[in-house]
């Protein structure tokens, strides 16, 4: 019964309580806030499991941006969940059986942290042993994500790109042009405006640090993208959508959405042209290691571009739905 074990258990219990409260509440505003809390607690749990890279993303997306997006959705719809008319019996049985099946499935899995587990004996030793020599990066997570598993990451970025395009398409029919529409800003909130002005600079700087320091510490394109986007979103929230659009036009953001994926794919094409496999960065530099560095830097930059642009344009699309979104909605 170590301290670490107790912390894990406490966080898990918090997660359970939050999830249960989310299920039971009908007030959607509270549900949104609780799901934000849920994300923050899971981020804490992930930090405690030494998965700092994931915790970053969870905290920024789950607790930050998705909360804002859900609040924006909430201001377009009702604030209370309808009471369901059907009975709970059938869904309960289905969920219970699925849960039992999943628990039964975990019985076959190796114990957490078991050194004999397949995941620790198959490719992990190769990554751990060879990253220093082949990629020359202290952060093995980045090396695996951007180089060894570059294809998977390209797929993930494409998923984000597709999801962003999907949201834009769904909402496009309703997007109102920014001109002529008066969007309320938090003009009289002097405290918010001053503090936001003070904070935006450090947030952007931190995003750049996370982006370009991802080779050496926790971080990378996904994390940096969402942090970067959250700075823009907080600007738009406090100073109004029109000001944000003046700073970063929606058209430019939509171009960046595609530019990130193109950059990622383009790096692969370049390594093609040098006569190597797709997304093999070793040929990009004078030595394989410097090539890997350059390739990972470019690829991560592409990831960051797409992620932040998708987040910002999704926010624009949601916020543009509701030009009268005023103080009381936030």
């Amino acid at each position, binding site marked *: 019964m170590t301290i670490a074990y107790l912390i894990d258990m406490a966080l898990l219990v918090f997660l359970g309580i939050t999830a249960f409260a989310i299920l039971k*509440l009908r*007030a959607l*505003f*509270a549900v949104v*806030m*609780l799901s934000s809390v849920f994300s923050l607690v899971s981020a804490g749990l992930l930090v405690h499991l030494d998965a700092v890279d994931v915790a970053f993303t969870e905290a920024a997306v789950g607790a930050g941006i998705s909360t804002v997006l859900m609040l924006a959705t909430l201001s377009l719809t009702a*604030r*209370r969940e309808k009471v369901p008319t059907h009975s709970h019996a059938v869904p309960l049985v289905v969920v219970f059986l699925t849960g039992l099946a999943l628990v039964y499935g975990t019985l076959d899995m190796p114990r957490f942290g078991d050194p004999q587990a397949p995941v620790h004996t198959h490719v992990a030793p190769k990554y751990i042993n060879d990253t220093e020599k082949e990629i020359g990066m202290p952060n093995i997570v980045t090396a695996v994500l951007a180089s060894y598993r570059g294809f998977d990451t390209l797929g993930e970025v494409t998923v984000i790109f597709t999801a962003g395009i999907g949201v834009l398409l769904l909402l496009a029919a309703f997007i109102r042009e920014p001109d002529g529409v008066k969007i309320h800003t938090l003009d009289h*909130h002097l*405290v*918010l405006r001053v*503090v936001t002005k*003070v*904070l935006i600079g*450090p947030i952007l700087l931190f995003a750049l640090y996370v982006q370009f320091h991802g080779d050496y510490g926790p971080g990378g394109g996904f994390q940096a993208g969402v942090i970067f986007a959250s700075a823009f979103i907080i600007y738009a929230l406090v100073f109004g959508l029109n000001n944000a659009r003046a700073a970063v036009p929606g058209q430019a953001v939509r171009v960046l959405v595609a530019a990130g994926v193109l950059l990622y794919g383009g790096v692969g094409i370049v390594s093609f042209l040098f006569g190597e496999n797709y997304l093999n960065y070793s040929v990009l530099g004078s030595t394989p290691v410097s090539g890997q560095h350059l390739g990972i830097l470019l690829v991560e930059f592409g990831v960051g571009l797409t992620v932040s642009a998708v987040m910002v344009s999704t926010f624009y699309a949601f916020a543009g739905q509701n030009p009268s979104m005023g*103080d*009381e909605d*936030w």
Partner: protein
Amino acid sequence: MSQLIIDGVSGALLAAGSFLVLVGALGLLRMPDFFTRMHAAGITDTLGADLILLGLMFQAGFSLVSVKLLLIGAFLFFTSPTSTHAIANAGYTAGLRSSLAEGETGSPSAGPQPDRGEGAPRP
């Protein structure tokens, strides 16, 4: 000897910070209405968190960890009161009035709102 002093100071700071956070949590549960709850949570949390960070800084000594803790403390020092202010302001804008100030202001919707987090009624 100096280590003993450092441990003592940091222990005292950690204890004081934990005490304040605990008091804030109790106040959040026990206070009668929205604004007094905000008061309990906001003020004690800011000082409590910063005291805990200060206590941890004494443990870390002059190192990079201390710089990071200092930065976290600085951000908390700005953001925590700001969020308290924003929430209280939103509550006021939405028509919530303090139950303690009842009668003075002739408020539109006086009295404590039994809020279970569903926010205030629209004006």
